[in-house]
């Protein structure tokens, strides 16, 4: 593989982290990001489940991209995605019942998580298997990173714990509002502003 190819693959992998972050920039997959981030553990679980679906469906879509007539591609993609979602759903139920309980309806809802669909349509249906794999991993990591950050902030401030362990001193009065629904919007709003700050400082300013 030439230097150029490796470079572009690396770019596919890293663009999901900051520049094309699925939550902060593309603004897709918000439901899961907000609803499953009441604690860092839930958030991480959701992130991993999402990444699995993302990577697998990206690969399969890239493999079958030349076989599927473009008129029926959307139903085909949906079927592929929902297969992997069902796998994740039943695996979680079998091995992590508590996590599955707290994520609830949001695991089957990964199937309509627009990010997965959008990447299948916009990226892996036009690119090679390796590039799609990289894209899937990058998007998965970007999503997991942000959702875990949101989960950690909400858990630390809202409950005084991190991954279930007491972090704040006992006297700390938790701001319960942050683990309630309004807190999710608030944290994401501030994270977006922070992300914009980072973008304008370290990348070329947007015109």
């Amino acid at each position, binding site marked *: 593989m030439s230097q150029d190819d490796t470079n572009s693959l690396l770019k596919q992998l890293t663009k999901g982290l900051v520049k094309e972050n699925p939550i902060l920039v593309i603004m897709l997959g918000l439901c899961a990001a907000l609803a499953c981030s009441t604690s860092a553990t839930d958030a991480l679980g959701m992130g991993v489940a999402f990444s699995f679906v993302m990577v697998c469906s990206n690969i399969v879509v890239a493999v079958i991209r030349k076989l599927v007539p473009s008129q029926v591609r959307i139903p085909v993609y949906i079927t592929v995605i929902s*297969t992997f979602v069902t796998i994740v759903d039943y695996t979680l139920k079998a091995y992590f019942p508590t996590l599955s309980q707290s994520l609830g309806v949001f695991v089957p*809802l990964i199937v*309509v998580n627009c990010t997965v669909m959008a990447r299948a349509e916009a990226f892996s249906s036009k690119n090679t298997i390796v590039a799609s794999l990289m894209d899937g991993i990058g998007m998965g990591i970007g999503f997991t990173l942000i959702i875990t950050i949101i989960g950690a902030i909400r858990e630390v401030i809202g409950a005084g714990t991190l991954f279930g362990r007491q972090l704040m001193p006992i006297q700390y009065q938790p701001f319960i509002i942050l683990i309630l629904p309004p807190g999710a919007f608030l944290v994401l709003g*501030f994270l977006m502003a922070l992300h914009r700050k980072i973008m304008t400082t370290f990348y070329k300013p947007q015109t």
Partner: protein
Amino acid sequence: MMSNDLNIFLIFLSAMIVNNILLIRFIALCSFFGISNSIKTSIGMGVAVIFVMIMATAVSWPVYHFILVPLNLVYLRTAAFILTIATFVQLEEMFIRRVFPPLYRAMGIYLPLIVVNCAVLAAAFLCIDYKFDFGRSIVYAIGVSSGYFVAIVMFAAIREVVDHAPVPTLFRGHPIAFITASLMSLAFLGFKGLFGL
């Protein structure tokens, strides 16, 4: 939490306000932020969601109880529901274009978008999870979709005002929208405990 012996009126109120699908349960947020630029488009989207959600629930409930359960295929429900709903939205689009052209114009491009709107699928799943019977499922779908309508129209109205407000540059656009949503969510949280729900 909710069961079949619950009063129909309470199911409706709970779905619409106390457990508002957008602000409390965080379902269908992509469209909430994507489409709420103006009151007009959000009304179109709201109407389309009400229409599709009621119909989709009316279709997916029998699919689950009369096809998937007797055949022991419950694990296929994700795939089955999404395909049913997608097919159904297509049919509905053709039907509305024929029969109610004004409504079709009001919904415009939002109708096809609803296929990937989580709210519709979520309502179908939740009806099954709560073990509602058919009538209650429909009432629940009406409640959920009216809640969606109310929330998205209110949010669009607020955003139109916020667009003209002197917001710090860093927060302009989406960040301030999220903070607005946070305050609205706080207001809806005030309904918690109403009628013991």
